[in-house]
């Protein structure tokens, strides 16, 4: 999948480009996020388009965080729909991510 990436001075913003992130495309998502994670350390992942995520999708997002953390970076999330947010809460994953309502707030958090 083609992941739209936008760069500010110090933060890279990656847009999840699908409505559903699940077992059918989680592997592909991880593969296509790899170049971003290799080249950058401060990443915001924008969920605005996403309507559904399953455990495979959550696993893929978690692995992104871990890759960044391993090299001293961080991943912040933004733009979640109510349903996607509640899936994070369901499995306590909202506690290990910084989650923001908007892209701007997520970017600002890196400089805070």
């Amino acid at each position, binding site marked *: 999948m083609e992941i739209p990436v936008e760069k500010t001075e110090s933060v890279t913003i990656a847009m999840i480009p699908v409505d559903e992130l699940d*077992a*059918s495309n989680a592997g592909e998502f991880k593969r296509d996020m790899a170049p971003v994670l290799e080249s950058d350390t401060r990443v915001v992942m924008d969920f605005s388009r996403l309507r559904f995520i399953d*455990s495979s999708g959550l696993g893929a997002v978690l692995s992104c965080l871990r890759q960044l953390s391993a090299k001293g970076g961080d991943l912040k999330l933004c733009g979640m729909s109510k349903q996607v947010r509640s899936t994070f809460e*369901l499995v*306590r*994953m909202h*506690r290990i991510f910084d989650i923001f309502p908007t892209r701007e707030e997520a970017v600002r958090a890196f400089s805070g």
Partner: protein
Amino acid sequence: MNAAPTSVSEIQEAICRHAKYSLGKAWPDLSPHERFAAVALAVRDRMVDAMLATEERYRQTDPKRLHYLSIEFLIGQSLGNNLRNLGLRESCREALARLGADLGEIERSEPDAALGNGGLGRLAACFLDSLATLGMPGYGYGINYEYGLFKQEIDDGYQREKPDNWLAQSSPWEIARPDEACLVPVYGRIEHGVDRHGVYNPMWMDWKLLVGVPHDMLVPGYGGRAVHFLRLYSARSSRDFDMQIFNDGDYFKAVEQKIASENVSKVLYPSDAVIGGHELRLLQEYFLVACALRDIVRQYERNHSSFREFSAKTAIQLNDTHPALAVAELMRILVDEKELPWAEAWEITQATLAYTNHTLAPEALEKWPIPLLEYTLPRHLEVIYEINRRFLQQVNAAFPGETSRINRMSLVEESLPKQVRMVNLAIVGSHSVNGVSVIHTGLLETTLVPDFHQFWPERFNNKTNGITQRRWLLEANPALADLISSTIGDAWITDLEHLRGLERVAGDAGFQSEFHTIKRANKEKLAALLWDSSRVKADPDSLFDIQAKRIHAYKRQLLNVLHVVDEYLALVEDGKPPSAPRTYVFAGKAAPGYRRAKQIIKLIHNVARAINSDPRARDWIKVAFLADYRVSLAEAILPAADLSEQISAAGTEASGTSSMKLALNGAVTIGTLDGANVEILDQVGPENMFIFGLTADKLRAMRETESYHPRELYERDARVRRLVDAFASKRFCPDEPGLFTWASQTVLDSDDPHFHLADLPTYIEEHGKAAAAFNDRVQWTSMAIRNVARIGRFSSDRTVKDYAREIWDLKSI
């Protein structure tokens, strides 16, 4: 266009509109089921308007709401009941007459919603009727089983089970609400880690997702002022296919997964089946709890920003332990999702939940193996462990060093494999634990869970079961309902204690005559049914002796058969006819895997065949078994009963509600001091009942001292010997000798848990008295009327008010 028809022409128009625009046909072209659907949809319009108005009224005051979680709701047919409660019956009858159709015929074509096995599920349905009638905001939560309880057919006296695909043609009562679907994760594993602040954070990973789609069945209260809903969930797979498998090219595997997900709401488990360890049943129980709590929390959060008021606004009643996972699920939601501290979440959980126990049989108590829980619900198992750890600290502090007590109270049984005791979980997680009759609650406290009662005596209370008079008299027995209303007014419909007004006419010759005429007409109808279904020719003037309930060893249908055969042998061998001609009617289903219960059905049929074909018995005894007992059949049987058999060994039946339905319809009870019989006796008086048998205390003492020796009675009493030997002989099984030897062995066994022979002599004696009383029509009719007059306490309106006042803190709005 009028969406809420009330006049005859409006109803007629609405029916035709639904025929055309909902079903796509002109009225004359509809099949019988489609005609029912068109009428139901027209009635549903009226209920939808009333439901929205009710919800608006409730919303204005943000009242506390009750959510009744039950794995079963035994609803039966709804059209007749809904029409009566809405006051539309006569208008609808007239509208249909104008369309050339008969309302009664359309009502009879409605399939029963058999989403339950027996008393527990029917109680839940009665409660919903009462809550709506009382205007108390209370809602049912259950499972939308595609297949209800099996249909029973009889083949050569043997029960055969047929699937009950009641939703095959879809139910016009149900309103699907896919926009309110709930996501339910299952399976997976726990990944132990820390959160952003370094605090321990177990994450639930690799789960599969079920989707619960709610379907609302509307529940109109009498008078139509309040209309509530019963929310039934259907399981759907999270997506139409697991796309990964589909992409890999394994289409059939993807379809299989979809089917597996939807299996969760496929079929109702019959009770008494050995269900411990059945993964699908555990998933059903969790599915119900997860969907219900998700919905309840979502509703609460619409009006509240914190959980401080949750228990002040929300009551959740657990109907038996099947929804007991609610304890772990509510804790999981509050702690994991809402990030409340454990102690605060626990306080809210206990203050919200309440638990009703329905069984005293230790072998029937639910336990789930830990390995199965770990596999299906890994996070919930962790929560249960933590609840248990904290709880056992409390117990240990209260009873230091009492290891065996601590082991008994633990949520985890140290068996192989270890198991979670759902009764203990339900008690620990609730602020109220109730039994369903006075004697049952006493036994719950003293014999089933005495450690818990000693620990939390204030938590235990009794709520004697009840039945809704709207279904079981107004709908089931309209002629008697009319007679009562014309005599004392119709206030009894919403306050059953008003039946006391019948006391003054119990001895009145005119009233007795009318009462008797109605009973006889009901017996004529049942006699016709017996002839149509079983080719048994019953005399409506004979004593109709009825035992209609699940077939189960503890309910002692075998004791009933012993008496029937004793009476028969006295007639044909001693030349002593019974005091009154009798028609014995049995009805009930046996769980498909319950061999003994199925043997009892076969025995009843063979005894019936022998007696019904014996010309010497022709004028005296008839025996019939009505197949496929269900709510609608109960409505036909119960109004015709003279004598109501409630004969479980004392200390075994939690409550029993058929006793109440039968007494309400003018039957006199022959029964033991068990379940609700004890309280019915208090109300109707010993002069209006036939009580026999040993008390629960006496039976327990016999069990403990091993002093029950039925063989001594057998040796001593020639009549008993002849009776028992008849089952060991080929008298009732000439082609299959030995078929009923089990019956002889059962009653002669010192370990017979149901003490058949201990109670047999007094049972026979009381039957003799009943027959003598029946022969005096004035005396009998007066007894029957007094049963009706004094049964008012057993309305589910009273029961619900008791729960509302003492457990739920729920008010009428």
